[in-house]
């Protein structure tokens, strides 16, 4: 069979697995762990586009997550909007805000960009945290409505919410995948490898960087809106820079720049944290050094393991062939000597 067929079969299997998962895992608590991992994975796919594809460390991601979450939650609570238009509004607001921030922040380069976006993230966090009149400050918002129902099918049940988030995750992965294999995606990779070179061969660098940034904020915003609708309550904590660092961790563990990376990282970290007591108590005591070790020795993360194995196998194979050839030559040499 052709490799494409195998890949298609693998993707279909994963899709079915995702659909069947909540039926197998009936425990509500475990389901919540999975859904939250999906939501953070969606935001991390956004970070992957700006950091993994384009090579720009944007530290304001949690801020945009918060913008999406609070936009959706406030529209539902204060103006009685439904979940779906509120989600759309969250997407639009995080897109527009992302575009405005992109215009100014992308003029800076390297370290300045990281520091600039960090400041934007902190400002968003502080405004959400302190603007008591609008966001209810540290108390947060409670009673945020869920996705409601489509016709007779209620989406507010645990199962319904799972599938809503699942669909968004699949769409996020699909966008990440198609972007990676499109012309703009390749332009982003070119920018990551060398911005000057990309510019020199005529890539409109600024336009593509803006695209990547806006996509990353849109992903974060939608993930935020899903979070608000799923949890039903919302506090300023989810907009703090620590959440951005968490996304960074998911990305690094899963595999920066890869398609599977964000989901893999989010699931693994969430599960380790939930199910191993030692991870719960000393989460960052372990993950902090893991982050350092990964970036030094293993910057491709888990998603690069198959490639590394393939490469090693190819090398071993080549070595074996070379050795066999050497033995054959030696053998024929000694045979001649014998003759």
């Amino acid at each position, binding site marked *: 069979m052709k490799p494409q067929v195998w890949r298609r079969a693998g993707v279909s299997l994963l899709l079915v697995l995702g659909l069947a998962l909540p039926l197998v895992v009936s425990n509500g608590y475990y389901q919540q762990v999975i859904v939250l991992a999906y939501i953070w994975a969606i935001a991390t796919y956004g970070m992957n586009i700006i950091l993994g594809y384009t090579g720009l460390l944007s530290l304001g991601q949690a801020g945009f997550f918060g913008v999406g979450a609070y936009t959706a939650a406030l529209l539902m609570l204060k103006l009685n909007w439904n979940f779906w238009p509120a989600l759309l509004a969250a997407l639009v607001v995080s897109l527009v805000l992302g575009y405005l921030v992109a215009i100014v922040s992308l003029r800076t380069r390297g370290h*300045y960009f990281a520091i600039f976006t*960090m400041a934007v993230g902190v400002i968003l966090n502080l405004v959400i945290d302190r603007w008591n009149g609008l966001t209810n400050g540290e108390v947060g918002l409670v009673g945020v409505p869920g996705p409601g129902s489509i016709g007779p099918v209620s989406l507010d049940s645990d199962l319904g919410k799972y599938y809503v988030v699942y669909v968004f995750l699949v769409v996020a992965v699909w966008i990440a995948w198609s972007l990676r294999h499109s012309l703009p995606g390749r332009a982003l990779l070119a920018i990551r490898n060398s911005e000057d070179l990309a510019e020199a061969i005529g890539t409109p660098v600024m336009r593509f960087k803006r695209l990547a940034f806006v996509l990353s904020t849109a992903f974060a915003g939608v993930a935020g809106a899903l979070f608000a609708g799923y949890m039903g309550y919302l506090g300023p904590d989810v907009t703090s820079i620590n959440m951005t660092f968490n996304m960074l961790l998911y990305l690094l563990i899963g595999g920066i720049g890869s398609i599977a990376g964000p989901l893999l990282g989010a699931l693994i970290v969430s599960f380790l944290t939930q199910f191993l007591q030692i991870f719960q108590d000393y989460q960052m005591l372990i993950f902090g050094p893991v982050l*350092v070790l990964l970036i030094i020795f293993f910057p491709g993360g888990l998603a690069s393991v198959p490639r590394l194995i393939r490469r090693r196998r190819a090398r071993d194979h080549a070595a074996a062939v070379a050795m066999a050839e050497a033995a054959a030559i030696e053998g024929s040499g000694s045979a001649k000597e014998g003759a």
Partner: protein
Amino acid sequence: MDEWGVAMTLLLQEILNGIVVGSIYSLVALGLTLVYGVMEIPNFAHGHLYMLGAYIAFFLLTSAHFSYWPALLGAVVVLVVVGLLVERLVFNPLRKAPQVNAMIASVGVMLFLEALAQAIWGPNYLQMPTPYGNVLHIGALSVTQQQLLVVVAAIVMMVLLNLFLKRTMIGAAIEAVAQHREGALLVGIPSGRIAMLTFAIASGLAALAAVLVTPINLLFPAMGTMVIMKAFVIIVLGGMGSIPGAILGGYILALAESIGGAYISTNYQDLIAFAVLVLILSIRPAGLFARRA
């Protein structure tokens, strides 16, 4: 006192507070800018080295029953060692990797240090004891001995650091690496050892600043987060790698915060720094004083 006198006193008191906070900002930013100048790494863990210094001193004061000055010295020594270790184990292996990698590694160090402090000392706020708690009155202004100590010690340290950099061979070597890494290597300066030294000095300065100011504030595992973010604002303000810029920037930011906080809104006081940063980088994307290439 008439109305105008009250207003003046309030302003002077805010300026005084600004100078105290600014001394700390400057010391932390100095270390950050030194490391940036020599190694071109924005070290996100710098604020957490500051935090660790405060906890070490707290431990020496309360559990080992040191008095204040030996505890301060002990914290500085420990942090110098920690700084050396971090440079060797984390940043040295990443010298040739893309810029982003070192930044991410520094985030890893930061997360680790915060978790470490929380595991050892718990998540609660702690009060660091000081023998200098008395309040002095100068006219209508009031200031604690500790606040005066902060200002005097910070200024002494800045003078000493300046003498070290300008008057000693090693100091000149640090400045040479900061100006031009390859050039410094060419004339035989061991840039690896200079990087270690710089990191050690920066960590020591951070510990010193922390032990000086913590008796005024409180001790908690995340205390480094806001400090480091403000230190970044300061070194962008003063030019990344610039030492006078870090000192001046520290005082300017602290004064803007204390005066702005008093007259505009204390609720949004922390916002001032980041608003200033966004404004500056929007107008001048390479910082206020772009470093010579």
